[in-house]
């Protein structure tokens, strides 16, 4: 389903706060806005700035339908992916989802044992 998404550029917070660009900054710099999540999906705006001039704006829109609309796709920030495996690192303490008191203490003890603390 197509939707028109009104985006007021001024309302977006950019990941780089407003900076005074030196006159010599001729290379284009890209500022990526936060990904805004809404019920229908979300949008992320990226602007390219050269000197003090915005040279291009691209918008990535993702909707909650099987087909996502990319007006001008921007690389979604890069998350590193790896396989889940166990670490044998030496640790002081332990963060996990809330458990019962006993289970938490048991888990912590077990992890600390394995880490040879």
């Amino acid at each position, binding site marked *: 389903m197509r939707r028109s998404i009104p985006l007021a550029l001024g309302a977006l917070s950019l*990941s780089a706060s407003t900076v005074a660009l030196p006159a010599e900054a001729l290379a284009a710099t890209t500022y990526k*806005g*936060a*990904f*805004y*999540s*809404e*019920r229908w999906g*979300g949008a*992320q705006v990226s602007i390219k700035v050269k000197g003090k001039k915005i040279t291009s704006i691209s918008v990535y829109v*993702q909707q909650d339908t099987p087909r996502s609309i990319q007006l001008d796709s921007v690389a*979604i*920030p*890069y*998350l*590193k*992916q*790896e*396989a*889940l*495996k*166990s*670490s*044998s*690192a*030496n*640790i*002081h*303490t*332990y*963060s*996990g*989802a*809330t*458990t*019962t*008191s006993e*289970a*938490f*203490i*048991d*888990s*912590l003890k*077990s*992890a600390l044992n*394995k*880490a040879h603390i």
Partner: protein
Amino acid sequence: MGLPVIFDICDEGFPDAALQVSIDWLHWVDRHFSTYRPDSQISRLNRGDLAPDQLHPQVKAVLGRCEAFRVHTGGWFDIRAPYMAQGKGPEAGRGRPGSVDPSGYVKGWAVSGAMRRLNVAGAKNACVNAGGDVVVCGHPDGDSAWRIGIQNPRSPGEIAVALAVTDAAVATSGAYARGQHIIDPFNQRPPEGLLSVTIVGPDLTAADVYATTVFAMGAQRGAQWVAGLDDYEAILIRADDTVLTTPGIAALRI
């Protein structure tokens, strides 16, 4: 709170009386906010025994901040969500319409407050761990940082990722320990695709809220949302046994 809280204070001669202040604070929070206590402010509010304007100012302030987080997260952190569940989960049908469960905010806030009270009393090297929500300052004896293991959801007692941090908070949300207690506020079902979400950042209150939020969003939207967060890093452990990390995590890993 029904949670085990571990205080690890490395400063020599730190007075027991000061530690007691932090402990008393946690009990105070529990008495006022716990949904497991029928006489807490939240329970009374949910039963209709207390009107919102009759609440203790601190409770009102917390509910106000939860609303601010609801807006900040586009509705994905919603303290009404556990009461919206239509399914047969443990939260279904609990309480009157309009009931709230601010635990996703209160836990991090309470523990953060406990650490702050330790700091005010002079503690510079400490770790507080409340059932998996961790806040640290300084460093333990003989080490430059606190080493924190993130539980492997497939293998409790084992660590999936280990981090070395100081002056930071680590909060983890997941489904594997207590079953599906986090509900997606938009479709009133448990979210899909994630086993756990760990958020690392400067403030445990926000880290706890974000961990709950990202978990509710599910794997795809959650991954996109965390990538856009400033100052907070994330570890997402997915149901397909893959781990996603934001770029700032690499520098913390051991």
